[in-house]
């Protein structure tokens, strides 16, 4: 169940709702540390269970990400109504190589980067913490 902070008007979303929002989107922002400096990339993704699956080419995400920590964020805001929500997942970023048991399954996911490039490396963020917040009128069921 989500909880509501009467002081700030922020509603904290439960894990189930966060996962539903993650499942319903396809583009988000991945943050990793590149030698201690934070870097943000917009990425296309698919949710697989609670893992965020992306595809990439060799570069910062692959070089600094694997076995490292990463943060992923999606949001949707209605500027005119001052309402919106955001979901943040924090966890371990790992490459899904051919030695991974779920390699075939992960490669079957419809992760279709809008940008060009081969993007032959599949990576997944395994979250150990997922938090979500909503501001403005509560969603009606």
């Amino acid at each position, binding site marked *: 169940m989500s909880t509501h902070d009467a002081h700030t008007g922020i509603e904290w979303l439960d894990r189930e709702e966060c996962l539903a929002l993650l499942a319903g989107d396809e583009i988000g922002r991945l943050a990793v540390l590149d030698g201690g400096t934070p870097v943000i990339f917009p990425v296309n993704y698919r949710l697989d269970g609670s893992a965020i699956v992306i595809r990439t080419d060799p570069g910062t995400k692959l070089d600094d990400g694997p076995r490292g920590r990463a943060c992923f964020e999606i949001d949707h805001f209605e500027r005119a109504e001052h309402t919106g929500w955001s979901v943040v997942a924090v966890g371990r970023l790992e490459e899904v190589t051919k030695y991974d048991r779920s390699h075939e399954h992960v490669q079957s996911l419809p992760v279709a980067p*809008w940008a060009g490039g081969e993007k032959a490396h599949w990576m997944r963020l395994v979250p150990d913490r997922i938090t979500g917040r909503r501001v403005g009128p509560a969603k009606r069921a």
Partner: protein
Amino acid sequence: MEVDRDGLEVLDRSECMRLLRRASLGHVGINSGSLPRVLPVVYSLDQSGRILIRTNVGSKLDAAVQDAVVAFEVDDFDARHESGWSVVATGVAHTVDDPGAPRRLGARCAGGDGRVVAITPEMITGRRLPPAGTDGGGHREHP
């Protein structure tokens, strides 16, 4: 027009600044105790091109931005046309020591308890992906 290895249009600094001025919702990337974090924020640009955001004293953001290098990202995507743009700025963040700063940020940056953080962009990069079927967007092939 310059295009990167992914076929995305490379935006120059003035176009990046124009886009930064147009939007009001961005994402701050911080190093929070050796963990990367990305947080959505409402922001505003001042006349010298600094990114101003409001924060709460003692918050995760407040603790992580004291004279630290942070990343700041703004984007606008259109899922229907698989297009959009993003701008990423990197720079040092510091607390603005000016009592008038929160007021000048205006109503859209309301909230927080009056602390304003400024990011001075040192590096700015931007990319644009035109809608599929337009010039520059025809290279996309999904496997």
